[in-house]
């Protein structure tokens, strides 16, 4: 393996693993605020108890997000030093702002939210939950601003030293790409939070244990899941797709498996890109749809990879094709299942419809897969660039960190993250098994630090 490939896998592995946690953190933070709000407005203690139950899972999840997140900021310097050196003046800015504006806020108010309920008034405790939510969503924003600049560089100039410099701070933060990406990404995080909440709710109802809480979880989870699944496709996914077609046609061609430019291009629902023959094997195509989706008319021409110089093809191309199709397919499934669940909830039949509760219980891993696949689509689609059109990936890595050293630390992270996964599953399983009854504030339960 070359050093370049190792550094790519190093970042890809650690960031993919890391993002399993923040997506639930950001999604759950919103849902916990929703539970606390209902508790406050209706003066219903059950919702407070539900919020306390989810706060326990949130705490474990947040912890893993924090500890796996620290390596991300460091890796710009350790593994991608040449990139860090030239662009630090631009993307170092949102990364530093994340620490200053988000992490301080989160860490301060998470402590109050988890430890301080007895000391705070109900409103102050609601406010601490809200500030934790705000902190986690601000954090997401600054990371997206960083990524958006790499996808679509704006507001920069190059100094004589070769370093990139911000020309307008506001233009950096208002990068249209960032706002589209942020909307799509946060909607995805809420999907994860909703499906996890629905899964626990469905489990309690099916198991007929804590089913009173299971129903609360299902209500909140299905409503949030329905809204976020729809916004994920329209408008956020749709807008992002059009913007992508305009600014990264090579990425779109790779995602859709379009080797040749086409008028009235069809959308390939299934198939295997045959890189060598430049065709799609076993294609299942719906004619004209792609042209319509991107340009609003079935006649429009969509650019294929034939218009892209070979050294600017996104790679690995088949992975780009599969991750995009996985994301889009799962996104469609989310809308369908949530429409059905939402209809049953509206007709007050959901809690009796075991046939619908089963898929709700079992579907919680799918948003993780979809969010991961979505990010892979964005990041592989950007290849071979680190900063689109400006800096190639092959120019950015740390030349003095050998492949041997990179492999050493990659294996180290893999081992450590395996242990983390086992601990996480064990502890979350225990929290779910003990259930929300044990979170009553009056009960003298065994002391916990954070979970």
């Amino acid at each position, binding site marked *: 393996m070359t050093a370049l490939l190792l550094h790519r896998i190093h970042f890809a592995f650690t960031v993919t693993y890391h993002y399993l946690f923040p997506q639930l953190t950001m999604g759950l933070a919103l849902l916990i605020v929703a539970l606390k709000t209902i508790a406050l407005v209706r003066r219903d203690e059950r919702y407070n108890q539900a919020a306390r139950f989810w706060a326990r899972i949130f705490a474990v999840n947040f912890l893993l997000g924090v500890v796996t997140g620290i390596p991300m900021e*460091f890796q710009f310097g350790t*593994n991608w030093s040449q990139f860090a050196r030239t662009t630090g003046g631009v*993307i170092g800015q949102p990364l530093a702002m994340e620490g200053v504006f988000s992490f301080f806020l989160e860490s*301060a108010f998470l402590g109050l939210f988890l*430890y301080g309920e*007895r000391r705070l008034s109900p409103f102050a405790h609601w406010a601490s939950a809200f500030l934790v939510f705000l902190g986690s969503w601000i954090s997401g924003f600054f990371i997206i601003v960083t990524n958006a600049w790499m996808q679509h560089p704006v507001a920069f100039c190059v100094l004589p030293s070769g370093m990139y410099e911000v020309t307008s701070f506001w233009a950096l933060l208002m990068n249209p790409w960032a706002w589209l990406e942020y909307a799509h990404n946060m909607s995805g995080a809420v999907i994860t939070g909703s499906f996890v909440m629905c899964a626990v709710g469905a489990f309690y109802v099916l198991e007929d244990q804590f089913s009173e809480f299971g129903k609360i979880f299902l209500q909140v989870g299905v409503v949030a899941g329905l809204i976020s699944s729809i916004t994920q496709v329209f408008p956020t996914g749709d807008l992002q797709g059009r913007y992508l077609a305009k600014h990264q046609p090579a990425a779109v061609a790779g995602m859709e498996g379009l080797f040749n430019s086409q008028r009235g291009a069809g959308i390939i629902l299934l198939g295997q890109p045959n890189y060598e023959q430049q065709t799609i094997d076993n294609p299942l195509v719906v004619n004209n749809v792609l042209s319509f989706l991107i340009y609003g008319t079935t006649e429009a021409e969509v650019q294929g990879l034939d218009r892209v110089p070979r050294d600017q093809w996104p790679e690995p191309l088949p992975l780009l094709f599969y991750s995009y199709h996985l994301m889009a397919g799962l996104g469609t499934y989310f809308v369908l299942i949530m429409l059905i669940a939402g209809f049953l909830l509206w007709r007050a039949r959901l809690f009796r419809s075991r046939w619908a509760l089963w898929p709700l219980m079992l579907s919680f891993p799918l948003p993780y897969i979809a969010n991961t696949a979505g990010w892979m689509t964005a990041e592989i689609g950007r290849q071979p660039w680190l900063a689109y059109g400006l800096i190639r990936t092959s120019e950015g890595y740390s030349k003095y960190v*050998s492949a041997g050293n990179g492999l050493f630390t990659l294996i180290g992270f893999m081992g450590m993250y395996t242990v983390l996964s086992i601990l996480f599953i064990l502890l979350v399983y225990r929290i779910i098994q003990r259930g929300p009854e044990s979170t009553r504030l009056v009960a003298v339960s065994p002391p916990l*630090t954070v979970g």
Partner: protein
Amino acid sequence: MGFVWFWLVAIMIVAYVVLDGFDLGVGMLHIFLGRTEQERQLILRSIGPVWDGNEVWLLAGGGTLYFAFPLLYASAFSGFYLALMIVLWLLILRGLSIELRMHLQLAVWRAFFDGLFFFSSLLLTVFYGAALANVIRGVPLGADGYFFLPLWTDWRVGPRPGILDWYTVVGGVVALVALEVHGALYLAVKTEGDLQERSRAVASLLSLVLFGVTVVSLIASIIARPDALSNYRSHPVLWIIPLIVLASLSGIVYGSRRRQDRKAFACSASYLAFMLAGAAVALYPRLLPSTNDPSRDITIQNALSGPHTLQVGLIWWIFGMLLAVTYFVIVYRMFRGKVSLETGAYGH
């Protein structure tokens, strides 16, 4: 602008060392000072609500370093690659051990995480001390501003240094003793009874050791980096910094004997701050000196970001820091006073 950002980053590092320093120190002491399960829980509760916020200073400081001095960030982080990765792993293990300890009622589970917390706190502290010593000693920078150091070579401060050599190990030992004193004094402030007495006794004993290793480290620095005193020679007023360090040390020794825990803790914070300030003054205007050719030094001048970046950065940095300080005041006020195990004291 370079001068300003040099000291802003220095302030963030000082904030990190003073704040996370006491919870690192507590981590190195809790298995010795906490003799019963109850005492260990008390000790961990004293840092439970604040350790995460303290650690944020590392991230915020790292991010600030990244955008203000990208060359330094890129060169140092890739050059100290292995040490940094070990630090990352230790940070992961340490965060897990403090937070997951209470999840299961098993004695074995708790003992395991106690051990892990001790081990990770100790090694982190030693690595931090060694890191600072590496920056003072310098590294063999190439013409392109990069370097790569193995973890160790022949343990000598020579033309082929390693991340660990006799000098940087001295730095690690100073950090170890200093943060143990700092942590013991924090516990003396936050606890009562036997535990408090034991914490005081440890602080009082270790403060004498700290006096010794501090003097050794200052001499060692002059041996490892003969020009470390040049700024002090050209600006004699700066000798006030080592004097404050000595005064703080005396304050620690005196305060821990006289049961004046708060004063002793304040002196220990001042000791840490001025040790770092002394190192920063010795370096200035260099950020990472070269061991082979002074013209290759990474300095404020050649590592600084563009002017607009820094101007805009200053505005949001000041605003953000005001917010951060406000949060810290709120949290520390909320959890002020002696820590206790009573249900509800920390609101479970």
